[in-house]
């Protein structure tokens, strides 16, 4: 971890934000986009991380580690499948559960996961992130 990085924790009524450094502009831009996306009723949280920074906003703070592990696993498996089936560099990976779905994307060195209710369409989120 880089020297001089700051850790900030903010606890709201129903969510928590944890940031660890923020030194790249793409990361900053993504964090702004995700903050906007987070305001949507169907979005229940997100994790944004780069090689040196992380930003978490999830309503269920006690499950942050579970969400983080799931995000990592989705990213890893998504890349394996993309290689196996010659899909190219994966732009997004979507995992749908019975109640919640997760959209994972990689933009440069930044990895993000957006957790949303099952009914929430992910297309607008992808569009919002890449534009």
């Amino acid at each position, binding site marked *: 971890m880089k020297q001089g990085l700051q850790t900030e924790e903010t606890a709201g009524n129903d969510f928590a934000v944890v940031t660890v450094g923020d030194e790249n502009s793409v990361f900053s831009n993504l964090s702004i986009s995700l903050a906007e996306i987070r305001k949507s009723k169907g979005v229940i949280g997100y994790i944004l991380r780069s090689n040196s920074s992380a930003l978490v906003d999830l309503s*269920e703070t006690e*499950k942050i580690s*579970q*969400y983080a*592990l*799931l995000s990592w*696993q*989705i990213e*890893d*498996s*998504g890349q*394996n*499948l*993309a290689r*196996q*089936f010659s*899909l*190219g*560099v*994966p*732009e*997004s*990976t*979507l*995992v*749908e*559960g*019975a*109640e*919640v*779905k*997760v959209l994972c994307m990689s933009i440069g060195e930044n990895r993000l996961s957006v957790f949303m209710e099952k009914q929430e369409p992910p297309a607008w989120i992808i569009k919002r992130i890449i534009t």
Partner: protein
Amino acid sequence: MTQAGVNEVQTILDEFKNICPEIIRCSLFKENNDALASSLETTEKEGQKVVAAFNSIAGYTEILGGMTTLTVQGPDRQLCVQSTNNHYLATISTRAANEKAVNSLTCVVVPTVLALMNRTSHLPERQDTSTVIEPEPIADIVASVPIEESTAIEQSVSVDPLEFSDESSLLNVSAKQFMVERIGGLMVASDVVRLDGEVIDEWHSLDDKKEIREVQIQTLDGKTTSVKFKIIKEKDGNSKGIIQIPDKILQALQINKGNLVIVKPVIE
């Protein structure tokens, strides 16, 4: 799943590319990684990758309420893996594919076919009368209830029971399943049921020398009675698979319109 079932699934997957040309490939894997069917040749390694990737994520999805679908989107094409009926369906399509069309095929057609095949494979070769609980297309069945049992139950039914002194009086091979229709009116005899004439002809053809004057009706819960019968006069085809029974007999057998019964001829 039987080989015939696998062939049918293969045919369906092959057809997907015709229905939706954006589907590049569709493969169905078993839990043990073997490819059950695929629209393109597939390898065991691919099966392993798909199953392993799906399961490795599924292990962490308790917070999502389990996992149903995994979709990986590349620049031009996307892979969708879904778990259905103990199988994994992997579909590769272009990003331009009509999502609704692809979902209809992969999320509706394949799971439905697998569920049907799964159900069919669990059915006994010969359908037991006691397992039939809902109206289904009329099918020939073999009467399997022991005569002793049916005779004992028959005595509890207060509808003019015919005494079966000779087991050979039943043409066991010609039992048929019918759906009950209620029949009533002033001109309707209370102790006579009405049947499809083709069935009667079929029974007669089994043994021309013997006369059929009555039929034995057996309900799904084992109640039996023997009654006289007539042929349904309607020639509009609606009589197929139907037995019209007067109220008195319906009450005695404790059945209603829409129930299924087994009917076999009593020959003398």
